[in-house]
């Protein structure tokens, strides 16, 4: 763990009580973000990526949700041990969130200037005039043209991209240490998406904030993230620095995702498609939750739930020139091997029994 570690989620478990039974939305999720770092949390719908963010922010609907285990360490303090009032004081000045749908996140009957200024009035006790002045400053900072003229406009008078800028301005208002952005550009057009991501990256650098970027878009991740946590069925299946992950994914699910997206710069034949569907969280398959869809699945995957294995360069590199059989034998022994140690939070890791062959195959290709 580095001194810079801003947020660390450890073995977080969340359940939802539904009328069909108890859904285990998170099954021991661990990840960490350093100050000034961008962590992308990648996953499909139902993977638990947004639930994790809500748990960190303390805005999880409880009930039906329930945090059944784990801890969320923010600047060394466990947030789960704090009271509601203390959590509220952290939201805003310390951490803030940007949502996908800016229009429904803004109050339609209040002017954007008023909503931006609200942060200063509530948390800093600023006067109305002062708050409006700060609102104009914020709007200028997120590069909204003619900010002073538009400060009294209402949310519907802004375009989608401008509204998302206002959301960013609102999140930035009290200069938090951590920003969680949940699909911030999914609803925007490509050209506007590029503007907004650029802005977010610039501001992050300027304030040295930690950024958790929740997305399903592999392109956005490659463009902005430093590290990636890939989620599947309420678990982290792979955790890696961005370049290493794209160069050689260590989990078959990550590999499948990377292979299944069409590329702008290449015209291929048929796309690789991960077969089957994401699992129903009421009935997560035994063993590795990905095994019914996995091309590498073997008997062990159907019974043994793979823990997060540390993926070390040495182990993977050493096996790179060995024959396929040798690699397979080595991987089969992985559980007894010294390299199968428990990884640090944030260290490159993969929840696949056969991560070594996965990495090696990817390197060879």
């Amino acid at each position, binding site marked *: 763990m580095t001194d810079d570690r801003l947020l660390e989620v450890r073995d977080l478990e969340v359940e939802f009580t539904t009328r069909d039974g108890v859904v285990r939305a998170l099954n021991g999720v661990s990840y960490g973000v350093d100050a000034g770092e961008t962590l992308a949390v990648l996953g499909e719908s139902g993977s638990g990526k947004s639930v994790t963010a809500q748990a960190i922010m303390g805005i999880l609907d409880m009930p039906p949700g329930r945090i059944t285990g784990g801890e969320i360490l923010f600047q060394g303090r466990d947030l789960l041990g704090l009271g509601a009032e203390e959590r509220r004081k952290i939201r805003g000045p310390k951490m803030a969130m940007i949502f996908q749908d800016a229009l429904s996140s803004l109050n339609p009957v209040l002017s954007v200037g008023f909503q931006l200024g609200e942060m200063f009035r509530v948390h800093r006790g600023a006067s109305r005039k002062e708050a409006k002045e700060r609102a104009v400053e914020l709007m200028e900072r997120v590069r909204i043209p003619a900010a002073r003229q538009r400060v009294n406009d209402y949310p519907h008078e802004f375009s989608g991209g401008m509204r998302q800028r206002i959301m960013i301005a609102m999140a930035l208002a009290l200069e938090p240490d951590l920003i969680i952005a949940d699909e911030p550009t999914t609803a925007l057009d490509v050209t506007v998406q590029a503007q907004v991501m650029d802005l977010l990256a610039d501001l992050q650098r300027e304030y040295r904030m930690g950024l958790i970027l929740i997305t399903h878009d592999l392109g956005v991740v490659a463009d902005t993230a430093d590290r990636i946590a890939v989620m599947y069925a309420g678990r982290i299946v792979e955790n890696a620095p961005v370049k290493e992950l794209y160069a050689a994914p260590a989990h078959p699910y990550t590999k499948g995702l990377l*292979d299944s997206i069409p590329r702008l710069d290449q015209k291929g*034949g048929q796309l*690789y498609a991960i*077969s*089957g*569907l994401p699992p129903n969280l*009421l*009935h997560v398959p035994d063993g590795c939750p990905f095994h019914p869809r996995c*091309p590498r699945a073997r008997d062990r995957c159907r019974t043994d739930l793979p823990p997060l294995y540390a993926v070390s360069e040495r182990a993977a590199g050493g096996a790179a020139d060995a024959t396929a059989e040798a690699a397979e034998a080595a991987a089969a022994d992985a559980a007894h091997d010294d390299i199968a140690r428990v990884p640090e939070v944030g260290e490159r890791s993969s929840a696949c029994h056969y991560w070594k062959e996965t990495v090696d195959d990817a390197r060879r290709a």
Partner: protein
Amino acid sequence: MPEPNRPDTPLDAQGAALDEAVVTRGEPGRARSLSSDAWHDLRRNPVFVISALLILFLLLIAIWPSSIASRDPLYCQLSRSLEGPAPGHWFGFDTQGCDVYTRVVYGARASIAVGVCATLGVALLGTVVGGLAGFFGGFWDALLSRTTDVFFAVPLVLGAIVFLSMIQLSGIWPVVLVIAALGWPQIARIARGAVITAKQNDYVQAARALGASNSRILLRHILPNAVAPVIVMATIMLGTIIALEATLSFLGVGLRPPTVSWGVDISSASDGMQFRNAPHILLYPAAALSLCVLAFIMMGDAVRDALDPKLR
């Protein structure tokens, strides 16, 4: 390039995943329509079960009142006027010396008949007007919606009093017709909104792209998806229409003696403040009326919860 997946592999995996999804409710492979889901929820809702049993009971006695009341509601002995409960006459006697229990039981028939018939009329008229306005839009919508507004502006009770005192006919049909003629705008507005919502769904565009006729789109695609709010509203209105009938009868313009109805009995109980001396003559018909109205309103609430797609 990895091996492209063959069509048979995803099929099996999907089958397994799908079956898992289905096991969660009902048996695997069984078809579950939205209405069967709603029914599944309703059966487990105590509010629905209680109100349904109550309504069932009220309907049964409305159809066969003689099964639980052996006397004739019109057989009265003036000599026993305003007498209290006695063996065989548990609810006592009213001003005319008629058995209150028998009259309360027989009163269900008129009240429920007016309620059911008027509600059917209201629902039918409202759905047709609102549905057509919503479906065709433009000029027809403007015309029908403004007409609805005109009717909506007439207060229901006042309008009913005016019309009923003008026509001076007895029996339940004038009351049913007047309520139906004045009560439909509420349903029409709801039906119009529901049809407009349903119309915007892509499956309506899909049907149109297939070349489906307007009547097919309206009957197969829009109505089944727009009918839920109308049913809910109609159930709740049934309760209020029964109360309205009682109000009109109480005011002397609705049902009149010799028709037996709760409203008529409440009206005669309050004539000359008779109930001060004999509270039972007001209490029992009023209690029966409240119970009946409550049952329908509770049922409407429960049905709304079950049909609300947002909870789904």
